């Protein structure tokens, strides 16, 4: 079970959150065209390593969190709000 350190509420059990997918995907501009929206909605990497993802804290502050999690070890490197630019720890991607 993940324990996600919510910047607003503190460390909480995974069960309080709703996973909302890949946070590296940015919604295209309205006129970006079908291909851009198809990529935005359907195309996902399935990699072993650091993953930037959205978690909505529905059981707490109801804020949307950006989380850097390792898909193999589940280690959480960083947590922030939607406006934060988060990146994986340097040199630790695998």
């Amino acid at each position, binding site marked *: *079970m993940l*324990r996600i350190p919510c910047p607003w509420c503190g460390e909480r*059990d995974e069960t309080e959150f709703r996973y909302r997918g890949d946070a590296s995907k940015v919604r295209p501009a*309205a006129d970006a065209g*079908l291909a851009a929206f198809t990529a935005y909605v359907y195309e996902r990497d399935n990699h072993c390593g650091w993953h930037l993802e959205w978690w909505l804290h529905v059981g707490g502050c109801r*804020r949307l969190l950006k989380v850097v999690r390792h898909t193999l070890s*589940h280690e959480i490197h960083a947590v922030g709000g*939607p406006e934060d630019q988060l990146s994986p720890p340097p040199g630790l991607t695998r």
Partner: protein
Amino acid sequence: MRAPGRIARGLLTDPDRPVGFRFDGRSMQGLAGDTLAAALLANGQRLVARSFKYHRPRGIVTAGPEEPCALVDVIGVSGREPNRLATTLLLHEGLVAESQNRWPSLRFDVLAVNDLMGRFLPAGFYYKTFMAPGWAWERLYEPLIRRAAGLGRLEAIVGDHAAPAETVHDHADVLVVGAGTAGLAAAHRLGTSGLKVMLADQDVVLGGGSLLDARWSAWRESLCAGLAGLATVRCLPRTTVLGAYGHGVFGALETLSPPEAARFDGLRERLRIIRARRVVCATGALERLIAFPGNDLPGVMLAGAAHQYLRRYGVAVGRRPVFFLNSDEAYEAVFALSGAGIECAVVDVRESSLAAERARALGVEVHGGAVVEGAYGRDGVRAVRVVDVTGRARRELAADCLLMSGGYSPATTLASQLGARLTWQEAIAAFTADLAPAIGQMAGAARGVFGLAAAARDGESAARTLAAQLARPVGAADPGVDLPPDADVTPIAALWEVRGPAKAFVDLQNDVTAADVRLSCREGYEHVEHMKRFTTHGMATDQGRIGGLVGSAVLAQARGVPLWQVGQTRPRPFAQPVPFAALAGGEVREHYRPKRRLPLHDWHEAAGATFVSTGLWLRPLVYSPRQGWEAVLNEARAVRRSVGITDVSTLGKIDVQGPDAARFLDFIYASSFATLAVGRARYGIMLREDGMLLDDGTTSRLAPEHFLVTTTTANATATLEHMEFHLQAVWPRLDVLLTDVGDQWAQFAVAGPRSREVVAAVVAGLELSNEAFPFMAASVATIAGVAGRVFRISFSGELAYELAVPARHALAVWSAVLEAGKRFGIAPYGLDALNTLRIEKGHVTAAELNGNTSADDLGMQRMLKKHGDFIGRALSQRPGLTAPERLQLVGVRPLARAHRLRNGLQLVAPEARTTSLGYVTSSTPSVESDGWVGLALVAGGRRRLGQRLIGTSPVHDEAIEIEIVSPHMLDPENLRVRA
């Protein structure tokens, strides 16, 4: 009536409290404090089970949760419970236990013939032999094999007889697993530093190995008293840590002591979910078996187990034991049994050792440089054949039990789950694990540090490391406590197997022999994980704890590589079998899922409503206890002819405020809201980004920067999350505030041609004429004296109003409406009638908004706004989502008025009856016309208006003629709602 095996006073047993119990129908007596295994051994019962595959006679092998053989069924008031471990099952008065896997009786078991056929039943036998024909596996072979193999018998325990259970959430700075000398010392040191500590041990008392050594009593008692006096330490005996789940989360199963169980209404087990910043794995080491011919005969046990039965329960497992061992540590059992006056003989693979010298000095007969070649006897050990390591000198020793010890493997299960890598330690002939500093520390025998004093010092040192890490550094070691010294030892000589012609087991529970492991290797399953799956070695409930490494060693020998290269199989949670009831905890029966109740739940109930669960909600289905459509149609008819009222408080309601509220709603909805005037409501549809419909509902503009969104009941939670996600992730710069007001507002639909007169009677300060308050108008108003809101919206297709008031005033307002409607014969209507009305009108609900439908499918393409961005805009324009052959919403009617429609009825062409063209999504008997009407999704449905299809339900053996009609079966010009 003294039990023959009871020779001394045990540490845990009370000689003044005899306890009666039954095993396989035989009455026996044990003592309070006994486990079932101890009591059986005291009574001389050595045969306790038949084995899984070969039905060989089996006895008790261990004294703890690692037991592979002594599994029993326990028959209690609530039924039969299989696979309880006799070695941990505490004896209580009236306990009834039965042996497993035998027929007709334990002594005479028909399927023991499997043993004679053993050479034809090697590992992998089933896979190879029962290959063809393919159908026979499921119907013939598997049922036969299942009857022959397997353990206990499962019987469902249902209803009130099911054992209560609960889950408790715990938090600690440090979880210490294992309360041997290492764990006790670590917990004490951490506790005195002020850190919050949980100390969990599977045993009923704390102390681990120190319980077996009288010299350690004073130390143990002083530490336990010290721990009890520390407010920061919680000691949890009887608590097995089941697994590590990452991020410092551990699952543990606590078995309640009898007095506590009584206080908790018979609660037996408690699942603890423990969150800890660090862990100390002081899980000790497990004694290993040795694979030699006959090593599964009843009477062959682990040496340490014999020691435990003597010390803890005062039970001698035999009067003429032969020990077969390879380390000095195992001699502790020899010294204990010999000290109790039992005549022991020792077979030690090593020529000489310090411990052997001490044993000889005590008068014990020690055969150095020898191994046991086989154990013999029918249903129990009678003799042991010993052979010199050179293989020349043989001799037979009379024995009534054989106590083996192949060395000690540090218990690394938990550490492995925590990501630790295993390292081979030649000095102890075992693997050890190291935890990452951010996770915790291994301590004591679990780290390969053997000896009680050495382990205690190791635990202390682990605690210091952690305390420093957690910023609670501790001072120097307590100088006052002198630890009893550990004896000097001669190193172990690794010994895994003594080969011979007969079966030598590496896994006693799954009946896996050393020969099976070699066969696996020959067949190409050389990796230890492949060998595990080929042979099932280590796949039983004991997870191969006493023989796992032995199997690896046999495999290493077969492959011709060192053991460290083969490794061990990866252990997974749970560490021991866990009852499902304990996992379910308190979330069973009425607490299984939350029930959402309407503010007027009690009124509906008093009015005779039959309730239905929709999602989490309990909603009135119909105000009648009777099944059938008559009551439903009466309710619906009242709405069509006069007026009715229904509780629609289950609708999701979201308050949307802020300067960018309208812009935000235009992004969220495919419909436009920026153009909505204050005091007006508008029906809107919402798409997912992939272009499919997500939800629909009406949104009202209460003020220029204040909207109220209603969602469908089914999608209320998902819609709010959808809006919150997009506001924060995609349009964070929009200044909008979303508040869930679903429970705040009760909402009632007053519908029917007389609804205006009824609503006018309860609403103050609002002119309801068509001019002043037209269809889709919305306004705040005082309703029956309560500040509320009135919306002129209609789901039924009739003139209708929805009244919203704060839920705490629901009853007053509802009653006032009923009173005002009395002269029109107002009647409350339930979900069934609501459904009847909306199907006739062609309004969609969750049955049609099913996640696979596009706006075009439901005939709503015109509602997608032409200009501006919104969620789903781009992908809803994909040609595939408007393709003419897609399933489209239509109305359906049976040609014969007497025929009923069913939801799910498949629609087929008369000439192609096996090709589905679509299906009925909703259906109801009609109040507006004769017979049934329904909605359906049909391929190219809009082109088929007027066509006749066949509605077929193979499961009901039905096929009826259907006419495709417009979904707007009632008042297609929408005149009634504007009346």
